[in-house]
C-alpha cells in the first residue's frame, strides 16, 4: 500500500510499504477513506519527539471502513463493513486507567512502556504513528491501518454524515473540547485560547458550547485570527499588541478566568530576544520546549483561575512561572486527550449542528501529495489551517 512515512528531520516521503495484517486477536484492519495532518505531526517532522525512525508510517487522525477483524473482536461491537472513526490513543478498555476513562494513559496498549517510563516517570498509552515512546504503531496516513483493541476505541458512524464532518473526532475536536472541559466553564467566564490552529479553533467552539461569556483567540497569523473572528471570537495578535495588557483591557483588569494553551512545545514569541533564548536552548537540547504560550497563560490568568494545557509538550522547560502559579492559586490541568471519553457526545453535538468541524478545512489533497501538505501546513502557506488527505 501507499503510506506517508517519516524520512528524517524535516522530511516525509510517500512510499510503498507492506499491507497491514492482524497481529493481535482484537485487531481490525481499516481501509482508510480520509486522514489528516495534525499540528502535532509537525513536532515529529521537526525532530522534537525522540525515537522516530526512518520509514515510520505517520498519521493519527483517520477513518474508514473495517475490512477485516481478528477472532477476538466482539461482533456485537464491530464487524466487517462498519464505517468507523479511529481515536488516536490506543486503549485496552480493561486496565485501571481505562476504567477511570483516562484512555490516553492506558496501561496495556504501549509495548514500549519501559521507554515511556524512563522519559515520563510512568508510561503512556500506545498511539498511532507517534514514535516509539508511544509504542511504535504504524499510523494512518496510509491506505490501510491495523487498529488494536478494535472493539474498544473505534466509533461507528451510522448516519450519513460526511467524512469531513466526523474525521476530526479522531483527535483535534475532542482535544480542543477537552481543553475547554478541563476548565469547568461557567456562564460568567472569559476564556482565552492561545493558538488559533485547528485544535485552538475547536477549543474556542467548545468553550462557546459549554457556555462561556466571551472567547478570546491569541495567535499571530492574521488569517487564523480572521477564521476565529468569523466564528464569533475576539482576536488578539501577539505580534501587534502586548498580550497581557490587551487581555486586561478585554476583561476589565481581571484577566481571563480560564486559559487554554493550544500551542505546545514549539511556540513563537512576539518578543525576539525571549524567542531566541528558548530557541537556542531547544536547539542545543538544554530544554526541549519553547513554552511561551504556557508562561503567558499562567501570568495572564486571573487569580484562582484554571490553565488547561492541550498543546503537546515532551520533556523539560525552564523559566516556569511557578511563583505566579502558586501564589495566585491557579489550577493547572492537562493531558493527551482521552478521545474515547468524548467521541459519542461530540458526534451528537455535530449531528445537532452545534459544532461544524468542517470550518477548519482549507486543503484537501490526495495522499500521494502528503509531502506538499506538510510543507504548506508547516509554513502556513496559502492560508493553510487544516489539510485532509484522501488515500
Amino acid at each position, binding site marked *: 500500500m501507499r503510506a506517508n512515512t517519516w524520512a528524517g528531520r524535516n522530511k516525509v516521503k510517500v512510499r510503498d510499504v*507492506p499491507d497491514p495484517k492482524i497481529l*493481535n486477536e482484537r485487531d481490525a484492519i481499516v481501509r482508510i477513506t480520509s486522514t489528516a495532518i495534525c499540528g502535532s505531526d509537525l513536532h515529529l517532522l521537526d525532530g522534537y519527539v525522540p525515537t522516530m*525512525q526512518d520509514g515510520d508510517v505517520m498519521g493519527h487522525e483517520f477513518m474508514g471502513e473495517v475490512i477485516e477483524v481478528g477472532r477476538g473482536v466482539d461482533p456485537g461491537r464491530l464487524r466487517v463493513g462498519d464505517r468507523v472513526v479511529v481515536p488516536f490513543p490506543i486503549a485496552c478498555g480493561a486496565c485501571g486507567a481505562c476504567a477511570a476513562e483516562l484512555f490516553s494513559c492506558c496501561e496495556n496498549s504501549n509495548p514500549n512502556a519501559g521507554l515511556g517510563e524512563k522519559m515520563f516517570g510512568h508510561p503512556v498509552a500506545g498511539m498511532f504513528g507517534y514514535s516509539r515512546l508511544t509504542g511504535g504503531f*504504524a499510523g494512518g496516513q496510509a491506505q490501510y491501518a491495523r487498529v488494536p483493541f478494535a472493539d474498544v476505541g473505534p466509533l461507528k458512524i451510522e448516519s450519513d454524515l460526511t467524512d469531513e464532518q466526523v474525521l476530526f473526532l479522531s483527535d483535534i475536536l475532542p482535544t480542543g473540547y477537552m481543553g475547554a472541559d478541563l476548565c469547568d466553564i461557567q456562564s460568567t467566564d472569559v476564556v482565552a485560547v492561545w493558538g488559533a490552529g485547528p485544535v485552538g479553533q475547536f477549543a474556542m467552539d467548545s468553550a462557546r458550547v459549554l457556555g462561556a461569556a466571551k472567547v478570546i483567540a491569541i495567535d499571530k497569523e492574521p488569517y487564523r485570527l480572521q477564521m476565529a473572528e468569523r466564528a464569533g471570537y475576539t482576536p488578539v495578535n501577539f505580534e501587534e499588541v502586548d498580550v497581557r495588557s490587551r487581555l486586561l483591557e478585554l476583561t476589565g483588569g481581571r484577566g481571563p478566568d480560564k486559559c487554554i494553551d493550544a500551542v505546545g512545545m514549539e511556540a513563537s514569541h512576539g518578543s525576539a530576544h525571549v524567542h531566541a533564548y528558548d530557541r537556542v536552548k531547544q536547539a542545543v537540547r538544554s530544554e526541549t520546549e519553547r513554552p511561551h504560550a504556557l508562561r503567558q497563560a499562567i501570568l495572564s490568568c486571573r487569580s484562582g483561575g484554571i490553565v488547561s494545557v492541550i498543546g503537546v509538550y515532551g520533556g523539560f522547560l525552564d523559566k516556569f512561572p511557578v511563583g505566579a502559579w502558586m501564589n495566585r492559586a491557579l489550577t493547572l490541568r492537562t493531558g493527551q486527550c482521552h478521545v474515547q471519553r468524548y467521541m459519542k457526545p461530540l458526534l451528537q453535538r455535530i449531528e445537532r449542528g452545534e459544532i461544524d468541524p468542517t470550518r477548519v478545512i482549507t486543503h484537501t489533497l490526495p495522499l500521494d501529495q502528503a509531502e506538499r501538505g506538510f510543507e504548506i501546513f508547516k509554513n502556513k502557506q496559502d492560508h493553510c489551517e487544516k489539510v485532509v488527505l484522501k488515500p
Partner: protein
Amino acid sequence: MTQLAIREAVKARQDEIQRRGRGLGWMSLGLGMAQLAAPDAVRRISGVDDSPTSRMVVPLVGARELAHAAGLLTSRRKSIWAWTRVLGDAMDLASLGVAIAHRAGRRRRRLVGVTGAVVGITVVDLLTAVQATRAKRIGTVRGLREGGSMELTATTTIRKPPPKVYEFWRDLGNLPTFMTHLEEVRTTGDRTSHWSASPVFGKNVEWDAEIVDEAPGEKIAWRSTGNADVPNTGTVRFGPAPDGVSTEVHVVLSYDIPGGALGKAVARYFGEEPHQQLDDDLRRLKQVMETGQVVRSDGAPWGKRARKEFPQRPAQPLSDAELAKGADA
C-alpha cells in the same frame, strides 16, 4: 537474614563506600589546593625545603591530588579512583623514603612524621579500594561475570481479583507466556515442576523446581532443586489493592549466577538494567490477564521477546516474509 535484609545490607554498604570515597575526595582536594597554593609552606612542614627538586615536585603532586579529587567527587566508580589514590600513595612513600635517606636532624624528624601520616592515609585508601572493588562485584551485573547472587524485585497492579491472578500463576505452565527467560514449565507433581530456559539464557538450561510455600490466593514460593545450573528461588505475593477490585503483585526472584560461559550468558541477558527484564515480564502478565494477549506493535512485534525490541524495526506493517518467519521467531 531475609532476602530483603540482604539487599538492604548490600545497599547500606555501597552507600558507605560512596560516602567514604567522597571523604577521600575532599581530602585530596584540600591537599592538592595547599600544595598548589602554598608549596613553600608544604615543603617546610615536610622538611624538604632545602631541595630545589621539591619546588617542582610538590605542585605536581598537588595537581595529581586534584585529579584524584575530581574522580572521587564526581564519579560513582569509587573503586577505580580509590586505587589511583593507592598508587599515588605508593609514589609519595617512595619519594619520602628517598628524602629520609638523605637527611638528618630536624628535617629528618619532620619527614618521618609526614611519612607516618602518609602511611595512615595509605591504609585508609587501600581499605576503601578493596571494599569498593568487592562491593562492585556483589552489586552490579559486571560482577556477575565472575559469578554471584542477584536479586530482582518488581511489582504491578492488575485489575483482576487476587484469586484469579493467583490461579493463573499457580498454573506454572502459564509463566512462559509472559516471562522472557522461560521456554517451558511442565508440572511434574503436586508441588514439583520441570523448567527450561529460553535461548536467551544460553542453550539447554533446565532445572527442577518445587513449591516450598503457598497460601491460595495470597502467595507462592518456589526454589530450584537438585543440581540446577542456575540455582534460583522465587516468591510472588498477591494482595488486594485499595480499589477493591485489583491485585497488587509483588515478585522477588533470586539467582545464584555461576561463573563461566553460562554466567556470562545470563549476565548478558539481564544487561545493564536487570530489573527492567522483570518489570517487562510483569507488564506482559498484566496485558495477558487484562486483555488476553501480549500487545504487539509494528515497531515491536515480537511479543514477549523484549530483548529483541531495540533497535526496533520501522513502525510500518510487517512484510509477508517477516510475518512468515513469525513475529515470535
